[in-house]
């Protein structure tokens, strides 16, 4: 009956058109696509037309070191984040809700606290005379303060801190979606806990680990604030170098060439991630 009724009134079957997306499309085209493309054009037109900016970037050892640093930090941060996040996500997936909501609350509080506030705290905590060095010296583990800031150690600690929630939260979803019966079956068939972990739990959570890890890696590659404040001048990362080329050196050609390389790598990895998890899963993440 009702199907029939709907059938007779074509207006109900008419889907919403593309029209609603027009304001968003206009905004993004005018104030995102056009400025970014214009910037990228400057990399091949300034100071003179040609590819000399890219030749400089790839030919100079200083820049090669920045690229290497950036990949190194992003890789280490991703690896540490995955290893630390997995057990936490595992517990959160099966914990009693009362206990779990406390941990979730702490994760959200950390995630929503102003980025500069968190980075400032780490600057104070990690400095030469900071709490961490003082404590380690007091209990006699070290006799000299450890260099924890203005180097890659500081950057790694600060970045892992910021990335952890982005890894834990999606991973909880992945782990909750695993049917506990599969593990019970493994135990019944005589698998040791270690075997069950290695051959069932880990492989089943691999899609979540891959998706989250890729996201953390991509975010780390282009991160600006934390590496700039916790890192040293001698081991700059790519985003900081781009900002410096534009802001201090006013070298728009070289800066936009470096920006283009960062954009290219990021977008390639983003495309890979979309293929891995599908656009739907990605966008349902929050």
């Amino acid at each position: 009956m009702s199907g029939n009724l709907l059938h007779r009134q074509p207006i109900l079957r008419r889907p919403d058109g593309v029209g609603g997306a027009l304001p968003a499309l206009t905004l993004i085209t005018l104030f995102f696509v056009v400025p970014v493309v214009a910037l990228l054009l400057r990399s091949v037109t300034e100071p003179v037309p040609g590819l000399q900016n890219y030749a400089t970037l790839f030919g100079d050892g200083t820049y090669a070191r920045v690229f290497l640093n950036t990949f190194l930090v992003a890789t280490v941060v991703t690896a540490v984040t995955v290893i630390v996040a997995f057990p936490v996500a595992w517990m959160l997936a099966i914990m009693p809700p009362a206990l779990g909501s406390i941990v979730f609350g702490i994760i959200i509080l950390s995630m929503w606290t102003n980025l500069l506030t968190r980075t400032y705290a780490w600057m104070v905590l990690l400095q030469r005379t900071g709490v961490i060095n003082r404590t380690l010296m007091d209990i006699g583990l070290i006799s000299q303060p450890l260099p924890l800031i203005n180097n890659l150690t500081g950057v790694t600690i600060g970045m892992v801190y910021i990335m952890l929630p982005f890894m834990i939260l999606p991973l909880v979803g992945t782990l909750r979606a695993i049917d506990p019966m599969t593990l019970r079956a493994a135990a019944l068939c005589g698998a040791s806990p270690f075997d069950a972990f290695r051959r069932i739990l880990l492989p089943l959570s691999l899609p979540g680990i891959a998706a989250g890890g890729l996201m953390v890696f991509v975010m780390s590659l282009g991160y600006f604030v934390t590496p700039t404040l916790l890192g040293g001048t001698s081991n700059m990362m790519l985003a900081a170098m781009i900002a410096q080329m534009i802001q201090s050196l006013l070298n728009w050609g070289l800066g936009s060439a470096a920006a283009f390389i960062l954009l290219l790598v990021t977008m390639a990895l983003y495309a890979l991630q979309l293929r891995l998890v599908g656009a739907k899963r990605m966008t349902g993440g929050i």
Partner: protein
Amino acid sequence: MLLDYDRLGWLRAALLGFTGLVAAFLLLPVVFIVLLSFGSSRWLAFPPPSWTLKWYEELFADPAWLEAALTSARIATMAAILAVVIGLLASFALVRGQFRGRNTLRGLLLTPMVLPVVVFAIAIYAFFLRIGLGGTTAGFVIAHTVLALPFAIIPITAALEGFDKTIEDAAIVCGASPFEAKLRVTLPAIKIGIFSAAIFAFLASWDEVVVAIFMASPTLQTLPVKIWGSLRQDLSPVIAAASSLLVLLTLSLMIVTALIRRKLSK
């Protein structure tokens, strides 16, 4: 029995202990900064020799801090409203539209979330210098709306996907106009998604540092720019006081969000 909380055995103690350590790690800087803001040592010695409110007095004595906070609030409010309205309209097309390239469009509208902010920051900085929007409130609002848009679209499309369209159709069958049906049936049904969108979009602008650093002018700076500027000079405890107020704001926002979500979902 690895996914059975009650049958994990010794592993449960180990995993719980580890989870507790990570939770402490996540909580450490937040608690530390609040304690530090009441400490009397200018050199941020910890534990502080004595307790004081002088950093808060210094903070409130400097009108630049309050002004920066108000600027941030103004820009974030405008950006959040724009992002939610534009995002809401776009979400209907993205979820229900049947046209070629729908997934491409979705990807495009979400790209500002993925592209490293520093690339967008220098691009929009150069662009606004050229068209005369550099260092203006309008420029700030536009740039932040672009960055906030994905954070508005994601929760709204998720809510809309979970909403049964036949209910909206039923309203039309009962005589409502399509617009009326959307306004009075669909929007109330997805209000939690819209509410999340508003919170996320506001935070995306309120916390935004990189674009703001490039766009700021001596007469127009947001709170993150003010903090950034102070951080680059020294690690003054006044920043700890400002940071503690931001932590307080985050906490209140979390509580209000939880309360409103509970109320809306009834």
